[in-house]
């Protein structure tokens, strides 16, 4: 399914193998990105970009975050380099891919403008999720006791920009969200076995100190 055009990567620049448009990497470690013009999902093989026969397919949305935005979390600066959009029966949410100044990655979740930052817990904790998993159950992750708040079956709706893995499978995946009384947040992604656990916290919009946000017609930028 590789398109005919050569997709060469030179430094942080590349050209789209599908439409020839320039591709600019914000993060040199990106494994996958999308073409801003034709929405092709492009996988990076060292110096080549391969179109994997899909389009990013990001529907119109109103998240104020965008690729290239910067912010802070726990005294570290980050840059937004890409995102995954998820959808489920009652709506959808964004997981913005963050690269921190120290080279590590994380995720900024925007669920109807409720913000949370999480990072992958490694090694993946073996959580005793049995078949009877239900809301209200509590689990210890790290140093906090989390309670299951929602169990969702979601699929990804689209991707945009740079991601740390090749991801375009649209199968439905179970997600379990967990919360604590102190606004800590964890989400368990059952797309892999053992499931991936991301842990972090809910963050007030102002505390993220976001810059480079989208502008909305008729609305002043946030102070």
């Amino acid at each position, binding site marked *: 399914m590789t398109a005919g055009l050569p997709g060469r990567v030179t430094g942080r620049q590349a050209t789209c193998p599908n439409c020839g448009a320039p591709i600019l990497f914000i993060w040199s470690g990106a494994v996958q990105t999308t073409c801003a013009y034709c929405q092709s999902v492009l996988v990076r093989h060292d110096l080549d970009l391969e179109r994997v026969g899909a389009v990013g397919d990001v*529907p*119109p*949305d*109103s998240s*104020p975050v965008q690729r290239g935005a910067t912010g802070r979390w726990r005294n570290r600066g980050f840059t937004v380099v890409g995102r995954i959009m998820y959808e489920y029966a*009652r*709506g959808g949410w964004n997981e913005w891919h963050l690269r921190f100044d120290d080279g590590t990655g994380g995720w900024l979740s925007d669920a*109807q*403008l*409720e913000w*949370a930052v999480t990072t992958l817990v490694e090694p993946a904790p073996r959580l005793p999720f049995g078949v009877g998993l239900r*809301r209200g159950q509590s689990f210890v992750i790290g140093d906090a006791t989390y*309670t299951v*708040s*929602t169990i969702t079956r979601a699929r990804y709706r689209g991707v945009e920009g740079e991601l740390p893995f090749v991801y375009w499978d649209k199968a439905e995946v179970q997600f379990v969200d967990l*919360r*604590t*009384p*102190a*606004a800590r*947040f964890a989400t368990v992604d059952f797309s892999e076995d053992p499931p991936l656990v991301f842990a972090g916290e*809910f963050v007030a*919009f102002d505390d993220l100190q976001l810059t480079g*946000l*989208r*502008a*909305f*017609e*008729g*609305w*002043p*930028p*946030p*102070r």
Partner: protein
Amino acid sequence: MAAATLRPGAVRSLSCPSCGAAVVLRGLAWTQTVACASCSAVLDARDPNLAVLQRAASRMRVEPLIPLGARGDWRGAPYEVIGFQQRTIRTPDGAWSWREYLLFNPYRGFRYLTEYDGHWTDVVPLQALPEVGGGAHAAAAYEGRAYKHFQTARAETTFVLGEFPWEVRVGDVAEARDYVAPPHGLSAESTDDETTWSKATYVDAAEIWRAFKVEGRPPSPQGVYSTQPNPLAARARARWAAFAVLAALLMLTLFGRAVLSANREVFSRQYVYRGTTVPDAPAAPGAAFVTPTFELPGGPSNVVVETEASVDNQWLFVEYALIDEATGQAYDFGREVSYYSGRDSDGNWTEGSKRDRARIGAVPGGRWFLRVEPSGDAAGRSIAYTVRVRRDVPTLAYYLLALVALAVPPVVGTLRSASFETRRWAESDHAPSSDDDGGDDDE
């Protein structure tokens, strides 16, 4: 189909497929459902054609007090009213409805204003999970504050207008558990899929009217609302605080008075009563006699005349007159000293006291003397007694009386505050007739 301009960030304007009226969309791509302002049909905002999800359920129409589209500076950011719904709780005693206004800011998200009988609260969704104790009526804890369970009820959506970032229908039902710690409240709304928590704070309607530039005046609140701060409690607290200050001042005054008052003994002499009055020395026979003059220093102040007698199963009655040497002004008073003791089937008993104090207020300064006329049942035994005169003696009793008088306003305030709380809880699951409080939270 071309009607939908999905330019992000712009207000969209479409036509209601049910009645043809204009439908304005303000909530950007967040809006999932919109109820036509004209015919109340519930429409699918994600569908370019605005598919009708629900025809107007009834002709009942509720007018929002703050119009849709109103924008105001609220809690530090501009917010726009984009949605409105009325929700109703039905009980065997009747139905209670409140109204929710959905506020939107494209960066800070969604929050609500709610109104019930003229009482308003500002509501924000909670990301944290408050702790709830066991049992249906357990209290909740959040941010170090304890919230009492107020009510658990089925809340039904009975009217919708405008936009919502979730699917909404007239007839939607959620179980709502409400907790209060005035001026705050917590609410947990559960559907089959999820439980969402929110935190409410009681606000003055006038503040909302100013912020959103609503015309006219807000309707005055009726009755007592669950999260309404108890103004009487504040008043009672203020009164107790004032009481504490005044009581401290009073005690300070009493202390100062005790330290500063002269409390000086200006006369003391011993006499003996022998059936007929014979002063020990300097003696002058006769029933009555006068003391030497003594100086009462200072301006008008009190005088205490103390009679201490060696009565033993006897009584001594003394008719006094305190007389101003210069003017002849006199204060007449009679005092009795009696002391009895004995033994009966209950054991030893005593009655009376060997000492008596008589207080005379506001006696001018000058040279004074006492006229003394004792009588008693000496019955052969003599009674030695001492007459002492003290000037400017502090009086504890007056201070205690003042203290009691000062305590009246705060006590009344506390009683009235308790009556306010009774009215607050009258509409809860914990109406005072059943039990005064839900379970205790031992979290």
